[in-house]
Structures are given as C-alpha cells and as structure tokens.
C-alpha cells in the first residue's frame, strides 16, 4: 500500500474513533443521576415548571438517542451546542480559549524535544560515564515529579523568592503591542517569552524526561545492532554510524511516544493552566466541570479528543515513512 493511499485510509479510519469519542462523552454526560438542569442548579430550589420549560427549550425532554442524533447533526456543521449555564455557543467559548492552550502545549513540546534528543544521544554514546549519570538523574527526577508541583516550585523560586518572572497569566504574541501597552513588537516578544517560560518548563519537563529515557535506551540498543557492528567492521566513521545508522532506527519509538504523550500534555495543560492562572481550554474545562455545564464539558472533551486523533494520524504516517521495515495492510 502506497504512503498516499495509507494516509487517506488512516483518515477514513479515524472517523469511527471520532464518532466513538462523541458516544463516550455523550453517555458519560448522561450517566449523571438526575436531570442536567437540576444538576446544574446544584440543589437550588426552583419551580418544577421552570425546569420543564428549560428542558423543552433545549430539547432535554426527548429520548437519549434522538438527542444524540440532533447533537451529531449539529456537530457535523461545527456547532457544539449551546451552553445553558453561560448562555453562549460552546464553539465561541472554546475558540476564545484555544490559543493559550496551543501556545503552551506547542512550546512545551519544543522545549522537550530540543533538550531530550541531544541529551539522550549523549547519554547513550557515553554510557556509564559521568555525563550519562547526570542526564539519567535529570530524566529520573523529571518523570518522577508532578508537573503542577514543578510549577508551584518554579513560582516559589522564580516569582516569589527571586521576583524574576511573572507567576501568572500569559502574553499572547498574536495581539498588538498596544493591547498590553508595550513599546513595540520586540517588547511583546520578550514579554511573551517571559510569561511562557515557567509554565512551558513545568509542562515540558515530564515530556522531556520521558523522551530522553526512550532516546537513550533506543540509541543503546541501536548501537549494539548487527548493522552497526558491520558498519564498524567496514571502517565507517563513528559519527556517520551515529548519524546515519543508529539514529534513524532509534527515532521510531520517539515518534510513537510523542504521539502518545500528546494526550498527557493536553491533560497536563489543565493543571498547568490552573496553577499559572492561564485562561486556556484547561481552565475553561475546570470552570465547566465546577458549574456542571455539561454542553461545554462535552464540547471540550470532543475537541481535545479530536486534536489527539489528528496527532496520532500524523504519528502513524511518519512511522511508515521513516521505518521501511513496518508494512501495513496486506499481510504476507
């Protein structure tokens, strides 16, 4: 199967998953004992008449499968429903909050990859030397520490004790400098980085550590491969072996982990946004959960699920692209 056909195939395959996500979310949201309107009011006394009118208005009096069909019909058109609690369209609420989360997650990944791959390779090539030990300790602490606690510690040190960096909020590079009262784009860029630094490190550390461990293990295995021994026997320079033979084979699991960890990163964003007071989708999710705004909760869960699915498709395609050993589809 050609790569292009595989890509198309993979996209079509994702459709059942996307439908599955909506089903799970819909079922979970309707598992709640009691009706959503009452749940939303959280024990406040309201006339039965009022509740029934609200239910009729939003179609909550109809059976579950009918509501699901209506929901899906709207979803296909990009309409994620209407938040009863906030009296605004869910799509609109989410678009406002998507930017900060994307900025946070992408920069955390950039930080993680930029540090993990070089450190992993260095650790593997200098196995059991001091460099290896130091990088292993860093990775070990990284995978063993809750991201939100790293965030709290970073705030304690760099914001409260030293006062170097801000402890909350983000500056968005897509806004004009005038919005913040900055002198120009240079200051805007500087402030963006200043605000992003702590949450980026807090969210990226776990990713960095995970990737580094995998990179190290894979490089060690790869360097012990028969093809590396053969290349050495032929007198291929060590640098070339590292770059051309060992490195490429070792990257396959890295790509898997990057794809898989997208989910952890998006979940971690909820915690980091909470700790750093960032108005992203994670905070919106927590606010929605707190007010039991179930239309909004469903919308966020579905969109984050969809983001992950797209990430996995990209992973699988690059997988097939990089490793010619992996064959797909037609067996034997």
């Amino acid at each position: 199967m050609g790569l292009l056909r595989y890509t198309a195939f993979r996209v079509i395959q994702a459709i059942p998953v996307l439908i599955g996500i909506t089903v799970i979310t819909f079922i979970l949201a309707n598992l709640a004992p009691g009706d959503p309107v009452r749940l939303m009011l959280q024990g406040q006394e309201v006339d039965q008449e009022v509740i029934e009118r609200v239910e009729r208005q939003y179609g909550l009096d109809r059976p579950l499968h009918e509501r699901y069909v209506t929901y899906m019909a709207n979803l296909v058109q990009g309409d994620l429903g209407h938040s009863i609690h906030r009296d605004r369209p869910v799509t609109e609420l989410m678009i406002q909050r998507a930017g900060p989360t994307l900025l946070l997650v992408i920069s955390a990944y950039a930080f993680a990859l930029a540090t993990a791959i070089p450190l992993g390779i260095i650790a593997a090539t200098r196995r059991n030397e001091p460099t290896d030990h130091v990088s292993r300790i860093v990775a070990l602490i990284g995978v063993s520490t809750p991201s939100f606690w790293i965030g709290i510690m970073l705030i304690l040190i760099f914001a409260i004790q030293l006062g170097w960096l801000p402890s909350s909020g983000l500056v968005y590079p897509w806004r004009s400098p005038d919005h913040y009262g900055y002198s120009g784009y240079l200051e805007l860029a500087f402030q963006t980085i200043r605000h992003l630094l702590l949450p980026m490190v807090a969210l990226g550390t776990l990713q960095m550590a995970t990737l580094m461990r995998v990179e190290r293990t894979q490089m060690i295995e790869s360097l012990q491969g028969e093809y590396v021994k053969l290349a050495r026997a032929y007198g291929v320079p060590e640098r070339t072996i590292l770059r051309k033979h060992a490195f490429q084979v070792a990257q396959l699991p890295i790509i898997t982990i990057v794809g898989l960890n997208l989910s952890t990163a998006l979940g971690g964003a909820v915690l980091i946004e909470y700790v750093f007071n960032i108005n992203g989708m994670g905070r919106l999710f927590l606010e929605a959960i707190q007010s039991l705004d179930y239309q909004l909760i469903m919308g966020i869960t579905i969109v984050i699920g969809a983001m992950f699915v797209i990430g996995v498709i990209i992973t699988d395609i690059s997988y097939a692209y990089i490793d010619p050993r992996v064959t797909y589809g037609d067996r034997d």
Partner: protein
Amino acid sequence: MAIGEGQMDTDAGGPSEDVEAKFGWRYTFAKVMQDTTARWGLYVVAVVLLISAYTVVDSNLSRLTFGAMSDFTFAETLPIFDHPERIPPPGQGEGNVPPVFHADGSMSNPLGTDPSGRDYFTRIVYGAQVSVSVGIASTLIGFVGGTIIGAVSGFYGGRIDDLLMRMVETVYAIPPLILIIVFTVFVSGGTPDITYAIIGVGITFIPVFARIIRSEVLSVREMDYIEAAKASGVKNRNIILRHVIPNSFAPVLVYATLQIGVTILIVAGLSFLGYGAQPPTPDWGQMLNVSHGYMHSNVWLSIWPGLAILVTIMGFNLFGDGLQDALDPRIDD
C-alpha cells in the same frame, strides 16, 4: 533484522536450560540487586509499601477495637505520630507551625502542622496509602487488559486489529485526566470520590499498554522466527504466548513499573484539583490543593507532599530501570 538475530537459536529450538535460568525470577532479582540504583529503588518501594500496609492495618485494627465511630488510632500512642485526620480543638493545636529546623519549629511536629493544626508528618506518612494502592491497582488493570488487546491486535492484523485499535484509540483519545474527571463527576452525580478515580484510572490505562505492545508486536511479527514457527505449524495462540509476547514483553514490563509512577502522578493531579481523595483523607495531592492557598505565607506546606510524591515515584522508576536492564537480553553488559 538485527534485533531478533541474537534470539534466533534459542527460539527456533525451544528454550534450553541455561536460557530458562537466565529468565527466572531468582536470576532477575539477583540482577536487580546487583545494580546499586535499582536496589535503592527497591528499598524505597519496600518502605513505602510497608508504611501503607502499616497504616491500613492500624486503621482497621483501631476501628475493630474502638468501634467504627471512634477516631482514635493505635499509632497516636507512639510519640512520633498524631491522628492523621482529627482536627485538634481550638486552643490545643496551632496551625501553620514551621518544620523543626526552623526557629519557630519544635520536635513534636518535625514537619510542622497544616493550617488546621494537624501534624504534617503524620499526614505525609498516611498519604502513602492512597497513592500506592491506587497506583498499583489501576496499573494492573491496564497491564493485563492492554497486553491481551495489544498482542492479539498486532499479531492478527487486519479486521481484528482495526476494530480493537479503534476501540482502544477512542478511550485513549481523551486525555486521562480529563476523562477521569468527567467520569468521576458525572458518575458520582457531582460528589467525586477516590473510588470513582480508581475505576476511572484503571480503565483509561488499558489503551496505553495495548498500543505499546502492539507497536512492538508489529516489528516482532515480521521476524524470521515467527515465519519459521508458522511454517512448522505452531498454533497462533502458542505463537502469541511463546514467541510474540515474550519478545515484546520487556518494554511493556518496564512501562508497567513506570506506569505506576504515572498513575500516582495522575491521581495526585486529580486530588490537587479536588476530584480525587476528599478531605479529611490525608492524600499528597489533596494536601497540595490545601497548601496552594498558603504559597506566600507557608512555603513548607507545598514542599513536603511534593517531595513525598517525588521520592515514591522515583523509587518505582529506579526499580523499573533495574528491571529493564535485568530483563532485556538485547542489552549486553
């Protein structure tokens, strides 16, 4: 196929005796103990497990002896412990006492007290129980479920693979923290509890294992020795059990020990946000939730529970690393 070549001779002819010995539990244990860092990891895990076991036994014994309504515990009689949950009456215990090495600290509360005046050391010690039990239980569910699904899916390929992987991906697509919060809040009808968190975490981790073992199986499947086994008429079930799983197993087993750590991380996050363990349960994440409001006035409240989480997870990770080296025949010494 460099990776598989080393095992060709043993796999084709059936395991010989010294290979059997090399994979035995005693051999693995001995090898883990040889590794200094892995040994320390094991010690940390052992200490944390013993502490959890002690607190479970103590609270149950106390309940049996003094009745379910009594909040007295045997541990209180020891000079180092206080009651983990009971808030001292006004005027008796001071809140926000700093740790012992601080000028205002005292030996009776070595780690200080929380804002309600409870001994922080006792609460940290009792906190091990929640993290460890949730971590191990949910990882086990994920490990067993994921290995079965992943191996079958990767080996057979085709329709079975498609169906299983789409189901797995569906659950996996939603970040665990978000899925568990939604699950916990809706299933409990707005009153979250640690029990819902355990079930939620358990289910959400099946896909992680399934995908990892499947991607291993995908490359193992292409190996010559699988071809050889097929050609000599070995049943599919036996190929999966005797060749595919053992050869894909090492990364998954290591992932499982690391996953206990990840689970403890997630549960800490859940409790930190208020959707895991509920007060007055002494749980590290829940304690960090409380201390978040005291970041400016009492730094220590935020430091101790985090360190406890860090040390516990580090123990599991060090042990996992040692296990990896001991189990992986592909890494030469």
